[in-house]
């Protein structure tokens, strides 16, 4: 069902955990399949210096979260915001069609985390 790369990420997910003093936190869940995902980013000089995730999810959800964190770590916030769910799936070498929606959580959570980060920044600036 899953290819080797997906299974490798499922088995050894990168960047699992939380960042207590994160600059942005994104959460998302699929009402449909019940998966839940939480993503933390630490930003320095507009670059994603650190990123961690937690997920209640299936193999596709875990692997795509892991993949995403690897893909965006070190990228500028703007660059990271360009990464789509499809990019993640492609980078994983493909996912079974019926599993695509599970993998969508990852990039969605990142969007939310970036939005959260920007929110904070604006608030700080306006202080």
């Amino acid at each position: 069902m899953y290819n080797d790369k997906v299974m490798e990420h499922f088995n050894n997910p990168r960047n699992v955990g939380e960042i207590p003093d994160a600059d942005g936190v994104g959460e998302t869940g699929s009402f449909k399949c019940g998966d839940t995902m939480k993503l933390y980013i630490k930003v320095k000089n507009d670059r994603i210096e650190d990123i961690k995730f937690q997920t209640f999810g299936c193999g596709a959800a875990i692997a795509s979260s892991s993949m995403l964190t690897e893909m965006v770590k070190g990228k500028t916030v703007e660059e990271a915001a360009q990464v789509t769910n499809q990019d993640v799936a492609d980078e994983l070498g493909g996912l079974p069609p019926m599993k695509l929606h599970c993998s969508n959580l990852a990039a969605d959570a990142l969007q939310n985390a970036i939005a959260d980060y920007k929110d904070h920044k604006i608030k700080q600036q306006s202080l």
Partner: protein
Amino acid sequence: MKSRLVYMDHGATTPVRKEVFDAMIPFFQEQYGNPSSLHTPGRKVRQAVEEAREKTARALGAGAEDIYFTAGGTESNNIALRGAAKERAKPGHIITSSVEHHAVLDVCQDLEREGHWVTYLPVDQDGLVDPETVKEAITGDTFIISIMAANNEIGTLQPIREIGSVARDCGILFHTDAVQVVGQLPVDVNDLNVDFLSLAAHKFNGPKGIGALYMKKGVKVDPLYRGGSQERKLRPGTENVPGVIGLGRAVELAVSEIPGKQKKLEYLRDRLIEGLIGIGDVVLNGHPQKRLPGNVNVSFKYIEGESVLLSLDMEGIAASSGSACSSGSLEPSHVLSAIGLDHPTAHGSVRFSLGFGNSEEDIDYVLEKAPPIVERLRSMSPTYHAR
């Protein structure tokens, strides 16, 4: 892959037993005649087919003339329900439960499209149908009741005999999907008061692609398929001879061994349940006592079933899950919803279904491998950390 395989998915399917395969072998290359043929090679095969029918009948306390071979459990269910509906001049009322297999539920839904109406009875938190609710649901238009003998996911055994009496007293046809029960627990069609009973060989160490429908003498259904006169026109088409022979041998063996097997499986089952619950935040789904001897269905809280399955699989343990992600649909199993599980708990369900080959060491192995898997997945879970 790991060379060790601990197969605990007997609810999905089972290996063909050596004795069963041996019985089938001659019917591929040597005794290949068509049982409908007049010549000696055909007549010999006809005789073997009828012997298999007798074995199947004997295993159910039925007469040989009440056994119809089909291509499996799904077909048996469809022929009984849709055939009974097709036999009627006008639409009518069907009673079933909300925890049936899709091969009953989806037929009912299709019959609704055609004008019939259906009552889907609720179940209690253990998955039990109350025979009283069956009685209350009956109307003057009710023509068939279909309640499964045991649930394939959570293993709950239904009070079939009681529901059968209700049906009989009201003169309504009664079908039971006994796909999970035949070969696991004693079944007697007369004792159960059923008019139809479905079974599938691959659930009791027989081959895939063959099943049977018991249909009581005198009951009439309008066949779905048309063609030759095989299976007295209820299921036309050249017989799956090796399958039929395999079914006959498998059901004979399985039923004769029930006493010992049932006890062994119940013991292994209860050890496994106990051990898994010991992990903590693990709940048993289905009835604690009234359940299939080999069925263990638990929800690992805070984690998702497919992830558990994949992780178990990497340790050589084959199990299954009612999680949406593992089923290809997006909804968690309708059975887990029907017993009232919330979404996350339903998504964390895993079924270990024990069978013929499982041993005490298999249980030990699972109980050694499962805890670290659960721990690892929980460590990644936001809901676990937020509990």
